């Protein structure tokens, strides 16, 4: 039915759907190009997973039009409906759902025709190698780690050469440290596949660090769609700001990479010297421009330089503004030409006696910083 070695038919994944069930109503549209990753961001219950299921054919919207790999797989007006097994849409669930009765190799081979042929074995070997699963081929899913499970599930989804790939919160099953480490790996794998990818996330940091394109979805409706900077740079829209909630975006330049610590040092780009941040290691090379995001609530304010702290980033600055921002206050700190927004409680504000003009230290961990995918990447 599907030639396993054939290249994926290049074509965008796009369409629109209207799906109602009870009170809930999903009305959205999308377009993702081959090689592009769209991060679908929104709170739980926003309709993200529903949309993925509709694209995969696992549920049937009342109305809409869905194209995958240049084919129309659903169009209500034209009465087109392809069942999921004919759509060639890969699907990765939160828990990966590797088939427990099969080995890792058996799972990867599952979607391939002629399971015992030489071509199949070769294809499985190729995927095992490119997803770093060597030596685990004959293990059962419960005998490998969560990270390995994610890779195996991805290999399984990509084995039959899907025309598009859908990822439903692929990092939920992993612990925090592993998540950050695996983001880059996932991006690399997906880049090689060169197909449209839609990834659901309820973590904005994850969404902006993986997505080439971010769509913020809430109550079944898309709020904003664009590249991560566009999305993060529009907190003016109250609803998006609340959903996205990243107050600090700093334009920096990579100064040096520290592979052993998993960090890199970035300095202010076109700003006075002195602004220097340690951020998690990413793709960019020294000299590259990067955008770093920090949540206002991740920043701690101190009235003296903290000694003996494990937090890698300590910046001194001058309070340039204090605004009421229920339930607390937003303090703006001018540090070496960059404005940092920090959220603190009213009690802290009173105890520290924070007023405009005061000299304070902003402290935050390297891991609180994240790289925002730039339009250019």
């Amino acid at each position, binding site marked *: *039915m599907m030639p396993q070695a054939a290249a994926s038919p290049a074509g965008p994944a796009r369409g629109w759907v209207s799906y109602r069930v009870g009170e809930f109503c999903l009305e959205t549209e999308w377009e993702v190009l081959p090689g592009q990753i769209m991060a679908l961001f929104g709170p739980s219950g926003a309709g993200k997973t529903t949309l993925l299921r509709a694209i995969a054919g*696992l549920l049937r919207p009342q109305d809409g039009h869905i194209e995958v790999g240049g084919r129309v797989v659903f169009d209500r007006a034209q009465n087109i409906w392809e069942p999921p*097994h*004919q759509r060639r849409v*890969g699907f990765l669930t939160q828990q990966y759902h590797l088939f*427990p009765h099969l080995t890792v190799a058996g799972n990867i081979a599952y979607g391939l025709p002629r399971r015992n042929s030489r071509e199949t074995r070769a294809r499985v070997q190729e995927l095992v190698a490119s997803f770093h699963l060597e030596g685990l081929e004959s293990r*059962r899913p419960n005998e490998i780690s969560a990270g390995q499970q994610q890779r195996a599930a991805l290999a399984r989804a990509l084995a039959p050469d899907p025309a598009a790939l859908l990822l439903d919160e692929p990092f939920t099953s992993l612990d925090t440290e592993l998540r950050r480490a695996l983001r880059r790996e996932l991006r690399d794998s997906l880049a090689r596949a060169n197909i449209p990818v839609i990834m659901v996330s309820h973590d904005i940091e994850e969404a902006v660090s993986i997505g080439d394109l971010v769509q913020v979805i809430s109550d079944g409706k898309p709020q904003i769609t664009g590249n991560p900077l566009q999305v993060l740079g529009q907190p003016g829209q109250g609803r998006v700001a609340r959903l996205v909630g990243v107050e600090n975006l700093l334009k920096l330049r990579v100064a040096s990479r520290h592979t052993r610590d998993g960090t890199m040092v970035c300095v202010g780009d076109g700003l006075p010297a002195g602004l220097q941040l340690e951020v998690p290691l990413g793709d960019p090379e020294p000299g590259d421009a990067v955008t770093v995001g920090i949540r206002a609530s991740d920043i701690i304010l101190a009235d003296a330089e903290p000694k003996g702290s494990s937090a890698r980033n300590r910046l001194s600055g001058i309070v340039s503004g204090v605004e009421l921002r229920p339930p607390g206050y937003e303090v703006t700190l001018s540090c070496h030409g960059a404005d940092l927004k920090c959220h603190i409680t009213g009690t802290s504000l009173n105890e520290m006696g924070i007023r405009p003009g005061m000299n304070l230290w902003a402290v935050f961990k390297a891991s609180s910083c994240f790289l925002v995918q730039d339009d250019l990447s």
Partner: protein
Amino acid sequence: MRNLFRASDYWGPVGAASTVIYTLFIGLPILALLIKAAGQESFIGSLTGEPVLQALRLSLITSSISILIVIGVGTPFARILARGNSLPLRVVDHLVELPIVLPPVVSGVAMLLAFGRQGILGPALSGLGISLPFTAAAVIFAQVFVAAPFYIRAAKLGFQSVAREYEDISQTLGVSPWATFRRLTLPLAGPSLLTGIALAWARAISEFGATIMFAGNLTGKTQTMPLAIMSALETSLDTAVALSVLLLVLALLVLIALGLITRRRGTASL
């Protein structure tokens, strides 16, 4: 014994006592059967009589046909029950279990009232020249009636234990729904299905009350092993004991086979 006590500090003594009591409670009657059988000079002799062989043959044939019918009809049905959630389906779900708790004689009477010559379907059936009571078909009817719920129940739970996401993913990998059922659902639900088959088969081959009510008791035609045991009891305990031991051995073989299969499957699916 020491392991038993050590296994759990809190439950140790109580657990050990109840284990011993229960084992004796179940074991003693079975042991008594075996001792009685061992003491018989004519043990083999009482098993080779023509009525015994006929009963054995009839039991094996009818229970095999019954179990095939149960599997054939019960599997798709169980699958629907496992996934469906509509009100009528939930009502049906409860009805399915009724024969488990009905006294078999009641099942037999109910079958007479439905399929008997004077039953609801009686006129229609006799119009077709079919008369069910007192035939081997009636034996199968009775067995299916009482045994099917055991299989359907187990199969339903088996199918429910297969998370829907597995089947979704299988389809997104290009595998058709039917192939998904064959390659994924069946293997994953397999141990439950086998348990269900064994339970249903055991129930079918030991079926007595509904059979004697609906199918009657005639050597070579409707007299299955349990009926033969009952009839033998009227005259000679020896023959009855020999037959009982035969049935016991058959049941034991099935349980052992099942244990082996599920254990292999069980470790395989872990």
